[in-house]
């Protein structure tokens, strides 16, 4: 990628992928889009901290992941227990096929939600975003062995949940 492109253009090109990552981390699409918005805001404000010549995508994923952790912490302080909204409330009305796709997405998001956060982020980065183990270790600032062992636990638990659907 040409690094002479304006920062905003590079960020814009990466937004669809970031939005997918947000969906893998969040409990529903509204939260995912809020997280994506917050990541854009933080990235624009912190752009001076990004070092040219390093990967912008890794930097943005790291920002999003950290914001997500902050959000989860804040939420667990705020709401001890929250009854999950009925699936039907979350998807509104639309043509049949779109509803099926939305339900399918929400089901998987619900399963991802059951994973401990430290496993969910590894599963999301490697199995959904397609990063390698080493790249993931760098984004999360973890030893590669930790990434590898969390991935084993996360994907095994996820398969047990998704396999039943």
């Amino acid at each position: 990628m040409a690094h002479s492109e304006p920062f905003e253009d590079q960020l814009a090109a990466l937004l669809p992928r970031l939005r997918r990552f947000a969906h893998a981390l969040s409990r529903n699409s509204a939260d995912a889009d809020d997280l994506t918005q917050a990541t854009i805001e933080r990235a624009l404000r912190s752009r001076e901290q990004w070092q040219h010549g390093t990967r912008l995508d890794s930097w943005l994923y790291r920002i999003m992941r950290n914001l997500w952790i902050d959000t989860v912490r804040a939420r667990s302080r705020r709401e001890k227990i929250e009854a999950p909204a009925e699936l039907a409330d979350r998807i509104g009305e639309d043509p049949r096929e779109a509803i099926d796709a939305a339900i399918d997405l929400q089901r998987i998001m619900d399963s991802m939600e059951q994973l401990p956060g430290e496993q969910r982020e590894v599963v999301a980065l490697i199995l959904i975003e397609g990063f390698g183990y080493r790249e993931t270790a760098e984004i999360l600032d973890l030893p590669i062995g930790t990434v590898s062992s969390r991935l084993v636990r996360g994907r095994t638990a996820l398969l047990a949940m998704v396999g039943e659907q």
Partner: protein
Amino acid sequence: MTSDEKFFAWLDGELVGAEADELERQVAADPALQQRAAAHRALQARLSQVFDPIVAAPLPEGMQEALQQPKGEIVDFGAVKRSRDAGRNWGPPQWAAIAATLVVGIVAGAMVSQGTGAPVAVQGGKLYAAAALDDALNTQLASAPDADVRIGLTFRDRRGAICRSFTEPAASGLACRAGNRWQVRGLFAPPEGQAGPYRMAAGAGPNLAVLIDSTRAGEPFNADQERSALAAGWR
């Protein structure tokens, strides 16, 4: 590394050389491991099927606005969210409906046809390369000069299928191996001013670049790898 970690590292293409060969042999000799590999490949396919349309979907309105703010200005995301909630609700149904299963830009109808000769054929609700496009994907290397269809990058997706990007006069796109055919994953109109005697260059267009980026696992093939893949029938 535990044996579990090693197995998954192999499955994810993280092992190389002798270690990879060893795992390959172990799995080949063990039906239980084969079954496990298949189950996890299916899980990954399911995740792709559900999450990948997000990459192809249009962004919610507020996000574009956020990027258009003057440099350094901080956006009131509360306000953006309130206006969004008041107006259109971009939940899953909307974008899922728009994204459907395939990324298709604005492409002339002549590209896709049920007749003969068209480069893309519809079958069972899916698009497959046909005619000259199919030939090019099967037989042509990226280095081939001055062909009607130009091949760009060749790489594997996360399920291990080989994918190739292409540019032909009416469109550029991406096709991935599905059985013995090339399933078209995306088709885009050529960037403005590049129709006709087009250039391949890096000018494949931003949509295609994003699709490639979100599809590929690992680096694109070099010329040698591309030749071996051709010789191996794109398995």
